């Protein structure tokens, strides 16, 4: 039994491997993009809207509300990044209950890639908000001695993000597999249902953490600007 979808390789040419991780990722991407396209090509700003538009509006409003609560800023700049993280991870985890579907989030490479994207996004948002100099200066706050720890913190939290998601999703799959061996009837179904909940929670945690990191990089600017304004 393969625990990670990375191990399932459909096609290989040298270092180029088309694994189940990539295939199911593309499937997810296609599903998300196509459904979004189908719904958003007929949008209406009248009181009567389609069910799909209603669903998307509800999801987007939920994102906006969450972003506004966490960052205390306008949600527009952060919405696509955080929203995409949540949708990708959430849908991937939900579809885990579909027989034959291997969630890409169950592979360490995917979670590492997502964590890395957060790792890259944080300085980008920070620099966009503060400017390069001010952003880099915050690594020296409150003292230059803190610089190594701050850098270690940056890396460790990225690693934690990746491993947390991977561990949770993989554990779900592993538990389901073990339970199938021990008690093949009924109990795995309950565990599958439970994994739906943990999957959504993990997606939420990942998104919120990414948001917190980004917010912390931009909020410093706010707190430093305030005394100047006085």
């Amino acid at each position, binding site marked *: 039994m393969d625990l990670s979808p990375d191990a399932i390789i459909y096609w290989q040419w040298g270092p180029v491997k088309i694994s189940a991780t990539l295939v199911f990722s593309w499937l997810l991407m296609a599903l998300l993009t196509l459904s979004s396209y189908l719904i958003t090509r007929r949008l209406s700003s009248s009181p009567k809207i389609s069910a799909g*538009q209603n669903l998307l509006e509800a999801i987007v409003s939920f994102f906006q509300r969450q972003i506004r609560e966490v960052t205390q800023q306008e949600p527009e700049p952060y919405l696509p990044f955080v929203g*995409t993280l949540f949708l990708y991870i959430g849908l991937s985890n939900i579809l885990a209950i579909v027989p034959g579907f291997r969630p890409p989030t169950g592979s360490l490479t995917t979670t590492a890639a997502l964590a890395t994207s957060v790792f890259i996004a944080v300085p980008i948002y920070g620099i966009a908000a503060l400017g390069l100099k001010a952003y880099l200066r915050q690594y020296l706050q409150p003292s230059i001695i803190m610089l190594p720890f701050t850098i270690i913190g940056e890396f460790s939290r990225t690693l934690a993000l990746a491993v947390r998601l991977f561990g949770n999703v993989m554990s779900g799959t592993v538990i389901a597999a073990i339970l199938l061996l021990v008690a093949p009837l009924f109990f795995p179904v309950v565990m599958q249902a439970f994994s739906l909940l943990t999957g959504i929670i993990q997606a939420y945690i990942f998104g919120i953490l990414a948001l917190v990191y980004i917010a912390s990089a931009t909020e410093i600017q706010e707190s430093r600007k305030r005394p100047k304004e006085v």
Partner: protein
Amino acid sequence: MGFDWFTFIAQLVNFLILLWLLRRFLYGPITRVMKEWAEKVAAGLAEAKEREAQAEEALASYAKQSEELEGKRQEILRQVQKEAEDNRRQFLSEARAEVQEARNQWQLALLRERENFLQALRRRSSKEVYVAMRQALRELADVELERHIVTVFLERLAALPEPQRQKMLGAIKHANNELMVRSAFELPDAEHKELNVVLHELLGEELKLHFLTTPELICGIELSAHGYKLAWSVDSYLSSLEATLEQLLASSTSLVKDRGVGA
């Protein structure tokens, strides 16, 4: 279970592609529509607020107008009531005046009627008295009395003032010297002759006398020529009395008229 760097890079790229795709097909359109909708709602609310303000303004304006109209209505009502009261008083006073006028007219008419009646009564009674007197004198009258009358008449004729005599002469001349001598009874010869002599002496020798017997004179004698008349008879006395009575009655009527106007 190793770490596949190719898959890692590929997933990183995949995520970036998905980010771009969702930004293009999901977040962009949805946020735009939501913004439009929010703007529409805000615009609708603003419009509703404006309309509410307008409605409140209109309401206030209508309330003010209504108040003004009510005030005007009360004013008009007061005016009309005052006019009605004035008219009522005027009509009442006019009606009172008319009633007073009618009463005055009626009283005057009553007074006139009474006066007319009294006048008619007086006239009638005087007539009756006159008729009775005439009857009595007619019964008393005779030739002897007439002779006395002629005697007195002749004395009076002799004492006739000059202007009257001249007037009589003028009249006789106009009547071709003819003089009518009327008496109630046939005059006795002695009086006849005496009268003839006296008249010829007084009025000229060429005088032609015509003697006539007229019972209407009752008792007495009358000379007449061309409208001039000289008489001394009971009838003339009675006529004079009647004329006096008429005059008295006429003066009493005018007195009544004066009183009627004064009332």
